[in-house]
């Protein structure tokens, strides 16, 4: 029976990180690990979902209104002209939108460039499709793009570049110059670009999220993926989308139809209400998350972290362990769970390629700040409780 398993599944082994997750649960730790909110979704959006269920909108559906509204927002936010009838595929979350995009575009042996550190699912999807993920390391401490190294990563087999901005886990927002370099490379090498923009509305310090597709000559080769999840605090609703030129969107749609066929209908209806939220909603979202970011940075600095890179977007801080803390990321997270009752994610799981200093891969810890003030205050208190006489954590 063992031979019945696919080669891929046989090569997977349980990870030490999963064990930490179980430890956190057993200790009832305050969870600054998971990237989803512990506060409520906005009331007007929940009401819309409830109304949809009551209005019998519960069968297979494609809600065209979502596409119409997204097209308006593409124009408003990025100056992009998209066809609402042909250019969108509504999927079960950005997860499915990305998987469908990869399955629609990546063939056996195709190479796909990824910026490292990276959310782990991109590489797994690419491998599932028979593609080869190629990691381009961003350079610490500010996670800058080394254009030279980037260009050298292209081969004749490179099919696409994946860009996640605002970036998980670092919180980096790719600059205009970096986007221009990526765009130039994609055009020169005639590659596709696949973006993950789920944190598009969570940027700080007047940083604007720029969509790669809005750069000259990029729309025709870019597939944008995003979702409701982070913007509207409904990660469990599974409403996302892909936006691409109609011919590519059509291919993605053909895959999607055979993977799930339809995103949950009542939540599609609620998505309309969500996307039509007034500008004030998006402003508050930013302001609240910025305050949380500042709080968590302060909290970490107070116990000895030296945060050299302040996140410009997303809901994460990727904190480097101070050099005099002679513990690895996994050891640190274990101590934090056991001593302070606070959980975070060891950074090593996000690093796939070579980074210049191999040791760096075990020196980062990711903290999520998509949590309510009670949670964050409690976490800060717990950290303060375990500092030593130096005022810093004793490790």
């Amino acid at each position, binding site marked *: 029976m063992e031979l019945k398993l696919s080669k891929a599944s046989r090569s997977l082994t349980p990870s030490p990180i999963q064990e930490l997750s179980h430890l956190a649960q057993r200790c009832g730790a305050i969870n600054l690990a998971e990237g989803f909110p512990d506060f409520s979704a906005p009331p007007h959006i929940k009401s819309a979902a*409830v109304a949809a269920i009551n209005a019998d909108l519960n069968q297979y559906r494609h809600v065209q209104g979502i596409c119409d509204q997204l097209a308006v927002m593409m124009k408003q936010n990025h100056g992009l002209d998209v066809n609402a009838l042909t250019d969108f595929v509504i999927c079960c979350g950005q997860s*499915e939108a990305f998987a469908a995009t990869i399955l629609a575009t990546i063939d056996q042996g195709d190479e796909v460039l990824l910026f490292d550190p990276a959310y782990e699912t991109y590489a797994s999807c690419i491998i599932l499709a028979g593609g080869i993920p190629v990691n381009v390391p961003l350079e610490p401490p500010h996670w800058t793009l080394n254009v030279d190294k980037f260009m050298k990563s292209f081969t004749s087999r490179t099919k696409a570049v994946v860009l996640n901005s605002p970036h998980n886990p670092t919180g980096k927002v790719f600059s205009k110059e970096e986007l221009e370099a990526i765009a130039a490379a994609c055009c020169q090498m005639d590659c596709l670009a696949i973006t993950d923009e789920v944190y598009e509305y969570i940027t700080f310090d007047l940083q604007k999220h720029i969509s790669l597709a809005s750069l000259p000559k990029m729309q025709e080769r870019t597939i944008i993926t995003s979702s409701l999840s982070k913007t509207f605090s409904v990660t469990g609703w599974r409403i996302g989308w892909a936006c691409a030129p109609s011919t590519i969107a059509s291919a993605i749609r053909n895959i999607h139809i055979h993977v799930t066929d339809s995103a949950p209908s009542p939540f599609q209806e609620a998505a309309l209400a969500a996307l039509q939220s007034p500008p004030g909603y998006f402003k508050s979202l930013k302001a609240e998350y910025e305050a949380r970011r500042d709080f968590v940075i302060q909290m970490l600095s107070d116990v000895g972290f030296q945060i050299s890179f302040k996140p410009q977007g997303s809901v994460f801080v990727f904190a480097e362990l101070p050099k005099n803390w002679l513990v690895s990321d996994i050891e640190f997270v274990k101590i934090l769970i056991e001593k302070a009752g606070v959980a975070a994610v060891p950074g090593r799981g996000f690093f796939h390629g070579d980074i210049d200093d191999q040791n760096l891969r075990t020196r980062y810890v990711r903290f999520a700040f998509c949590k309510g003030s009670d949670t964050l205050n409690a976490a800060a208190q717990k950290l303060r409780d375990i500092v030593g006489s130096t005022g810093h954590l004793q490790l």
Partner: protein
Amino acid sequence: MFLRSLPSSSAFRSAARRISAVRMAAISTASEEKGASSAEKEQRHQLPSNPPPLQVAKRLEKFKTTIFTQMSMLAIKHGAINLGQGFPNFDGPEFVKEAAIQAIKEGKNQYARGYGVPELNSAIAARFKKDTGLEVDPEKEVTVTSGCTEAIAATMLGLINPGDEVIIFAPFYDSYEATLSMAGAKIKSITLRPPDFGVPVDELKSAITKNTRAIMINTPHNPTGKMFSREELELIASLCIENDVLVFTDEVYDKLAFEAEHISMGSLPGMYERTVTMNSIGKTFSLTGWKIGWAIAPPHLTWGFRQAHSFLTFATSTPMQWAASVALKAPDTYFEELKKDYSVKKEILVEGLKAAGFIVYPSSGTYFVVVDHTPFGYENDVAFCEYLIREVGVVAIPTSVFYLDPEEGKNLVRFTFCKDEDTLRAAVKRMKERLHKR
């Protein structure tokens, strides 16, 4: 979220497939072309005059336009009564809808555990025990997915290697072939033929060999309404055990079994260890748009399934999972009422189709009936369906799209009776009055 380590890229064998240049226009769905003229679309797109060569995966080369969308568009255009697409025009039960609303209000709106909300996994295991007598571990052997559609995709992508031989029975639900193509499988099709769509024993015996990796069984069967008998399942089982073959079953219509008892392949001796049993709440609870499905499989098969699922959708809609856990605990009376209601609907449709002049094949389960349209003199099923929409104002689905060789299905069309009685009566009336032999 906590992380797992990744498989190495050398884990996949390369598939030997050739591609002829595929222009996207050949595979775009009809529905997108409504509205804007191509000139308008060109303008809005600002496409360069020489767009880059189409960069689409080889796995799409066999994809056809989805027939359901095509027919639906035509139906809307002609104001036809839609007995084509398989979803109800009535809604699900209040107690299930209420449960979803409660879950939303209680804040159950964030990521669920990837393989399912524990209460739902337990409810699925309990239901499976009630239906089959089998005890399964909800934590290790049940995985929740976005509908049975995703369960099928995760099974094919998670358990089938490129080049593996997989057997399906024609006519088949179109996503089996599509996902097998995506997985790079070699598809072998065995045709079920009217009038009883029985499994052809000799053909089956020569088809299942040591080279077979898996066989896909849909019972009760869409589109024919056939239910695999105990004898048929036992024969397939013995061949699978002898040749070490996996079985994937799609049992979404299991609660719509009218003329025969529904049997789960996993409950036959020696079969659970090699079977992936898939189901969903969509048809049983008339909530096809909620997308709550699942797979039950032994741990060594669940592992590969869960890997694919985690990359395809990562997690399933949380509030609907809570509602599904309530739905699955519905009392026996719910299921008895469901069958009674559907039996009445079936009677209306079948009587009407016979009176209108079709050759009607008996359907034991599902909410579908297939009929032979040839008495009306059209050259194939697509032509007949187009005539039916335009001149009679009723939609049926041409079944040729459910075969590897469309010729095999050209005499048959599929009607559904998952519509309220008034709709069914109106459709029957139109057919009796307007259907003419050519």
